[in-house]
């Protein structure tokens, strides 16, 4: 009897090792792919990454072409998107979590928000074109793009914020109510400070997704070639992914390499956003240790 168990234990341990190897292989494959892609991009683009590239305006001559206009355009669009989407998304999530109750209407809204998060971005682009660019006569402007992007990231922000709000321990919420706090006081003094780290993380991840979006911005009319910087929300603009696409579509090899350099800049912006998200999360987690 003991012998039988021993043999089974060895078989279980072997299976355990096999699964460990499978999982290791999965992560190694994804990291390897990423490394190869990154290496390819860096090899092509690194030598174009000069100060003149970062501060230069578009040009038909590759040596003179710079990325400043789409870089500033991207920062404008996501900056404005964050400004619009953060308060709107967080407020909507608070309403759904703390005020809406459990009616058929709130359940309907909930299901729709979850579905909206999965709608293809090009659909938002068409909506933006119809409503903001034409309907509200905002034209092919930074503002029209930011409003479209706001619609795009809003469902993601709402879902992420609700998760963060729900993670606040009920014991803290009841503790505050038991001292005579009103609902808004409980939200302001206990819920939001406790959830702030996760909310900010979710918002920044949603925004950084918007940073890489191309399709809806082409639809609302980002310019492929524009030689001035946007100075106010109604100016025309371009963004990094569109510039990269534009360069990559040209036959001259030098432009291909410029596209690679543009990708490095886009990745740098993305990674710094994510770094901020991680930093915020750590900062708040330390403060709100349970």
């Amino acid at each position, binding site marked *: 009897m003991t012998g039988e168990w021993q043999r089974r234990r060895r078989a279980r341990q072997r299976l355990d090792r096999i699964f460990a190897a499978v999982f290791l292989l999965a992560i190694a494959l994804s990291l390897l792919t990423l490394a190869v892609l990154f290496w390819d991009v860096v090899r092509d683009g690194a030598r174009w990454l000069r100060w003149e590239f970062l501060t230069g305006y578009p040009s038909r001559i590759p040596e003179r072409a710079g990325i400043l206009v789409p870089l500033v355009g991207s920062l404008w669009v996501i900056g404005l998107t964050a400004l619009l989407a953060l308060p709107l998304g967080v407020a909507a999530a608070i309403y759904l979590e703390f005020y809406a109750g459990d009616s058929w209407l709130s359940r309907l809204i909930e299901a729709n928000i979850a579905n909206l998060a999965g709608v293809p971005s090009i659909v938002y682009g068409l909506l933006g074109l119809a409503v903001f660019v034409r309907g509200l006569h905002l034209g092919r402007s930074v503002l029209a793009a930011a409003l479209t992007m706001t619609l795009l990231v809003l469902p993601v922000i709402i879902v992420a914020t609700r998760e963060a709000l729900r993670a606040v321990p009920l014991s803290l919420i*009841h*503790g*505050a109510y*038991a*001292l005579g706090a009103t609902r808004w006081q409980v939200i302001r003094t*206990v819920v939001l400070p406790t959830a702030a780290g996760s909310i900010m993380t979710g918002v920044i991840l949603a925004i950084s997704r918007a940073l890489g979006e191309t399709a809806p911005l082409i639809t609302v009319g980002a310019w492929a070639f524009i030689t001035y910087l946007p100075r106010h929300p109604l100016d025309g603009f371009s963004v990094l992914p569109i510039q990269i696409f534009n360069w990559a579509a040209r036959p001259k090899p030098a432009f291909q390499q410029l596209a690679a350099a543009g990708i490095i800049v886009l990745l740098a912006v993305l990674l710094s956003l994510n770094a901020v998200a991680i930093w915020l999360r750590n900062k708040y987690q330390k*403060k709100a240790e*349970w």
Partner: protein
Amino acid sequence: MGVAFQIRNLNVYYGQHQVLYDVNMDIRERAVTAIIGPSGCGKSTLLRCLNRMHDLQPGVRITGEVRFKGKNIYDDDVDPMEIRYRIGMVFQKPNPFPKSIFENVAFGPRINGYRGNLNELVERCLRQAALWDEVKDRLHKSALSLSGGQQQRLCLARALAVEPEVILMDEPASALDPISTAKLEDLILELKSRYTIVLVTHNMQQAGRVADETAFFLNGRLIEMGPTRQMFANPREKKTEEYLTGRFG
């Protein structure tokens, strides 16, 4: 002595499931009333009826009356915020806010618009909760750095800071070690000269040590209530006797 609560024909349902059946009892002012009974007998549910904590939980239905100082707290014109401000609560598991020790005690006064000297108030409440000497040098450190027993006394100080008339305690010692429990019980005995205290406990010895009156609940019904010593020595009901002698529970 006056009566703080008059509970009349109180029924509580969670959805379809009834958890309290037709409870009638009076709770004395400036005394300790213990509510004992086995797990699931409805004693925590009853406690939460006394400061309208059930409002926060969807699906709970309450019928009957809970009169506090003569006024039914479930009347339409009663503000539950005011009820919870006058009737404080200490929970089963210590739940200090992830803020400093000082801010935890100052929380209630702040949200209720206290205009006086906060430093004095915080010190007075921490002294009342027998915590001052242990924390006076680190008032601005996180409350989560305290031990479980200290956290529970901090929660008591936090409840005292809004100067309630009643303190409800829901098995406040169940997560504490024996020494912390003894400290908490001493505190309860000190506080009862100024506050009405209602204590839910599954620890009969604890009820015997601190309570002036004890109510025994079984399956959502009040079985027996009376002066603690008398009930422990001479229970009227057979069920009470069986529970007290450890035949079930």
